[in-house]
C-alpha cells in the first residue's frame, strides 16, 4: 500500500491470493464440510474463485468487485454462492467508482459486505457460520483504521482465525449442519474457515 491508499491492482491481488488459498485448502474445506454438511465447500469455492480470477475486468474498484460477486453467484451454487456473492456485491457498492480506497473506505466496504451476508443468511453471532470469522475481523479493521494499516490487517486476520477456531465449540443453527444439533459441536465450520482465508489474503496483499 502506497501513500495510505489501496490501489485497484492491490485489490486484484487480494482476489488472486484468496483464490490461491482456496485452491491450496480445497481438500481441507471439503473434509470440514463432509463432517457437518455435504462435503463440497472446497470444490464449489475453488470453482467459483478460479472463475473470478479468470474473469477479472477493468474499470473502477466497484466494477471489478461487482464482477467478482456476480461471477461467484453464477458459479458457486449452494449457500456459499449467494453469501460470498452478496458480500462482494455489497462491498462493490460501498467501494464506489474510484480507482483506489483508503483504509477507512476499505473497512466500510468490508462492513457493507458483512451486512450483506447477514441480510442474505440471517446469521447471528454464535450460529457457527462464516459470520463468526468475518465479524471480528471487520471490528478489528474499524478499530485500527487510524493506525498502521499493515498491522491493522494482521490484527483482523488474527481476529478471523480466532473466530474460526471458536466455531469448533459452537452448536450449528444455520444451514445443513443445523440438522445435526448437538452432533455439530466439535467440528470447525467450513464457511468460517474460508472466510478467515479471505481476511488472511487481505493481510498478505493489502498491507
Amino acid at each position, binding site marked *: 500500500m502506497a501513500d495510505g491508499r489501496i490501489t485497484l491492482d492491490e485489490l486484484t491481488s487480494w482476489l488472486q491470493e484468496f483464490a490461491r488459498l482456496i485452491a491450496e485448502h480445497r481438500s481441507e474445506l471439503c473434509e470440514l464440510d463432509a463432517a457437518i454438511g*455435504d*462435503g*463440497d465447500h472446497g*470444490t*464449489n469455492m475453488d470453482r467459483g474463485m478460479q472463475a473470478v480470477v479468470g474473469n477479472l475486468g477493468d474499470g473502477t474498484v466497484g466494477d471489478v468487485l461487482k464482477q467478482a460477486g456476480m461471477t461467484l*453467484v*453464477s*458459479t*458457486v*451454487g*449452494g*449457500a456459499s*454462492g*449467494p*453469501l460470498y*456473492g*452478496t458480500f462482494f456485491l455489497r462491498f462493490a457498492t460501498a467501494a464506489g467508482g474510484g480507482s483506489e480506497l483508503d483504509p477507512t473506505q476499505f473497512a466500510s466496504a468490508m462492513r457493507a459486505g458483512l451486512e450483506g451476508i447477514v441480510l*442474505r*443468511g440471517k446469521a447471528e453471532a454464535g450460529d457457527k457460520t462464516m459470520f463468526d470469522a468475518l465479524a471480528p475481523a471487520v471490528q478489528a479493521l474499524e478499530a485500527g483504521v487510524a493506525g498502521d494499516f499493515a498491522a491493522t490487517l494482521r490484527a483482523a486476520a488474527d481476529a478471523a482465525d480466532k473466530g474460526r477456531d471458536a466455531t469448533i465449540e459452537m*452448536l450449528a*443453527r*444455520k*444451514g*445443513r449442519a*443445523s*440438522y*445435526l*444439533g448437538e*452432533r455439530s459441536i466439535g467440528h470447525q465450520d467450513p464457511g468460517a474457515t474460508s472466510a478467515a482465508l479471505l481476511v488472511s489474503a487481505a493481510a498478505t496483499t493489502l498491507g
Partner: protein
Amino acid sequence: MKKLINDPADVVSEALRGVEAAHPELRVDHAHKIIYRGDAPRPGKVGLISGGGSGHEPLHGGFVGPGMLDAACCGEVFTSPVPDQMLEATKAVDGGAGVLHIVKNYTGDVMNFEMAAELAATETGVEVVSVVTDDDVAVQDSTWTAGRRGVGVTVLLEKIAGAAAEEGRPLKEVADVAREVNANGRSMGIALTSCTVPANGKPTFELGETEMEVGVGIHGEPGRSRRPLAPAREIADLLLEPILEDLPFRRGDGVIAFVNGLGGTPLIELYLLYGEVARILGDRGITPVRSLVGPYITSLDMAGASVTLLRVTDELLRLWDAPVNTPALRWGV
C-alpha cells in the same frame, strides 16, 4: 461405486441429453440446464417454475408439462441451481400473468431463488411470488435449525398448483393454493441404505446392515433416530405417528396418501408399505381418498421410503384430479 454413467462430472448434462431425446414434447436449454414444456410461455397463464439439486428425479424435470410445471432448473447433484438459471426460466415462462417459484426449504435453494426473484424484479419487471415447502416433520426444532425440509409435499403441490395455473387463475390465487397444500401436508422418511453421490464415489453416510435411519432427509441428512431394522408394519407406525400428531390429522379427514420410494426400493415393497399405511389410516378413521405410490422424489440410489399425507378439501381434490401430462405424472389426457 457401480453406476450407469460415463464421467461423474457429466452426469447432469448427459442426463439432460437423454431427457431431450426421450421427450420431444419438452424443450431443454443445455447451457442453463433448464427443462421447459414445449409450448412455454403460455399467454395469460401463470408460469410455474421449480428446481433444485439433481438426484431427486423425477422431481422436478419429470413434472414439466401441461397441468404441472412450465420449467425446472437443474443444479448439480444435491447442489442448488444458481440465480442465473431461475432468472432465465422466469423470463422464458412468463406469459404476462407472472411466475410462481416453488422452492424446497434448504438454505442454498432458498438463497439462490431469493436472489433470482430480486434480479427478476430489477431486470425484467416480471411479477414473481415464491412459495417454500417445508413438510418434513423429522426436523423437530425449527427455531434453532434451518427449519423443516421440503420433501414429498413438493410433488403434490406442483400438481395441484399446476392445475390451478392451467385454469387461468391469477398469480395470487395460484400462490394461495400452493401455500394451502404446504400447510396441510406432512411427511417423514426412512433410509435402509445411504445414497452415493457420483462425484464423491462413496456412500454419504454409514448405516449398518441391520440398521435404519428414521427421519432421513433426501440428501442423507440425519433423521430423528437410528434403530435396528424393523418389519414394515412397525416402520409404517414410526413414520405415520409423528405425521398424524403434527398437523394433526383427525378422524373424518380425507387425505391424499403418498408412499414415495427414495430410489433404491422396489415398487413391491412400496405397495407393501402402502398397505400398512392404509391399515393405520383405517384404524384412525382417516380416509385416503387418493393414493400415489412410486419413486417421485428420490435420493439417488438410497433404499428407503417416505410417507406424505395431504389433507384435502373438495377443491384441492378437484385440482389433483385435473388432467396432467408430464413424463412422470400423466392422467386425464
